[in-house]
């Protein structure tokens, strides 16, 4: 159901863009919306980043997946239990670029009374295919926003279209991203567990990106557009001299651009912010050096606790009888300042960063 609705929404978006071009709203769909969407994307992401940065991480809670640094002769797992900042950076690098945690994935099956664990790297592979292709495709699109196009983009474009399949040659990443997306979509539909936890907001970006990819692919191979005119428009956008080129560009381009704009505007306010969020993940971006380097909690507050003096007074007789040494030096603690989340009027001072 959710998937169906998501699909219908995406189709609706396509129709909106199509009708928009029929009505001659090229300026709206080619200039205004892209600019607004891009602005929302950048500002939205910055807003998100700041919203996270404003919240302190009270404790240092790395998830350790390997041996801590301890005695010198114990082999320390630098990536899995990083001790220094540099090791944390490495861990984050592998996490962000190679999806290391997903690589660990297993699949549990119950066979009679036995639990068995199988290797399950398909999700990792699908995710890698999708994300890397998406990244390369984004880089490739720089060719439409720069003039002259930088050499490395030209080379990237050349390598990506190495195999001469079709006119113009097909991009390898176009095939890979389709494979990755279809895998991710099918997985959501077919795997009962993943299907069960999926919302419309999980399907929507999938269909949206699929729509972007398919419209892009169609534009290149089937419903051709005047690339020269397209670049006139896109370069205009990048150089803040937006114009709608005189030569007409097919609706397919405006559909593509509109879907991209929707994605950009949707990005900062959806689960897609995981792209930035991962950098903030405290279980991954903190060093497991808790005992060596103190972590400061800005809202640490004193708490009420029972003192030894009270304790010793309570058990003095018993302790003396049992021959446990009594500490005569200890004095009752003066009233110490304390706060509590649970007692009215004693709440800890509110946190302001």
């Amino acid at each position, binding site marked *: 159901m959710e998937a169906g609705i998501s699909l219908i929404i995406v189709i609706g978006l396509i129709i909106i863009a199509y009708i928009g071009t029929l009505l001659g709203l090229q300026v709206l769909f080619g200039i205004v919306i892209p600019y607004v969407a891009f602005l929302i994307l950048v500002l939205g992401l910055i807003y998100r980043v700041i919203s996270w940065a404003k919240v302190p991480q009270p404790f240092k809670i790395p998830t350790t997946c390997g041996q801590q640094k301890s005695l010198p002769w114990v082999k320390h797992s630098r990536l899995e239990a990083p001790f220094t900042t540099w090791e944390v950076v490495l861990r984050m690098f592998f996490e962000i670029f190679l999806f290391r945690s997903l690589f660990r994935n297993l699949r549990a099956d119950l066979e009679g009374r036995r639990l068995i664990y199988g290797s399950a790297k398909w999700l990792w592979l699908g995710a890698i295919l999708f994300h890397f292709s998406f990244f390369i495709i984004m880089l490739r699109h720089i*060719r439409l926003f720069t*003039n002259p196009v930088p050499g490395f983009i030209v080379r990237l474009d050349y390598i990506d279209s190495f195999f001469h399949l079709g006119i113009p040659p097909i991009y390898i990443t176009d095939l890979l991203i389709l494979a990755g997306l279809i895998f991710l979509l099918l997985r959501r539909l077919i795997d009962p567990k993943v299907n069960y936890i999926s919302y419309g907001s999980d399907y929507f970006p999938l269909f949206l990106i699929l729509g972007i990819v398919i419209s892009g692919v169609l534009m290149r191979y089937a419903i051709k557009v005047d690339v020269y005119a397209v670049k006139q428009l896109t*370069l205009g956008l990048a150089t803040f001299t937006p114009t709608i080129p005189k030569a007409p560009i097919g609706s397919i381009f405006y559909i593509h651009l509109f879907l991209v704009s929707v994605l950009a505007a949707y990005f900062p306010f959806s689960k897609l912010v995981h792209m930035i969020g991962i950098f903030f993940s405290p279980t991954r971006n903190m060093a497991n050096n808790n005992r060596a380097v103190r972590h400061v909690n800005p809202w640490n507050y004193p708490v009420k606790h029972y003192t030894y003096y009270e304790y010793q007074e309570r058990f003095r007789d018993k302790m003396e009888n049992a021959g446990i040494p009594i500490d005569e030096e200890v004095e009752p603690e003066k009233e110490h300042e304390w706060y509590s989340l649970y007692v009215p009027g004693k709440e800890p001072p509110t946190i302001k960063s």
Partner: protein
Amino acid sequence: MYNADKVIPGIIILILFFTLPIWLNVGRLEAVPEVELPKEEKKCVESKEFMRREHMKLLDDWRIKVLRENQHVYLSGEGKNFKISLQNTCMKCHENKEKFCDKCHNFVVTHPDCWTCHIAPEVAKKWK
């Protein structure tokens, strides 16, 4: 804000990343190239719009027709006849590859490999 030492550079990198094309253009931006159109001929085999979109497809169809089906003449939408030949028909009007083809192809970055075999007029001229 906490971890400002990392967050602020992060935000800067984020902005730089999303505005990468702008920075790549700085100091080297060139005007949108205008292709040099033939002086005598005003009309290509098909309409300008069609040619701008589909010329590669058309050329590919031409090749198949000539090489594989022995059909050497193209009958255009307007009923005109054209001998199918990149070198002898297209380039007779568009007499300079660099000023016509390359201008646009370099602009939008496509890598057609026509010219490893086919000889551009200016190349033929320069041949010793």
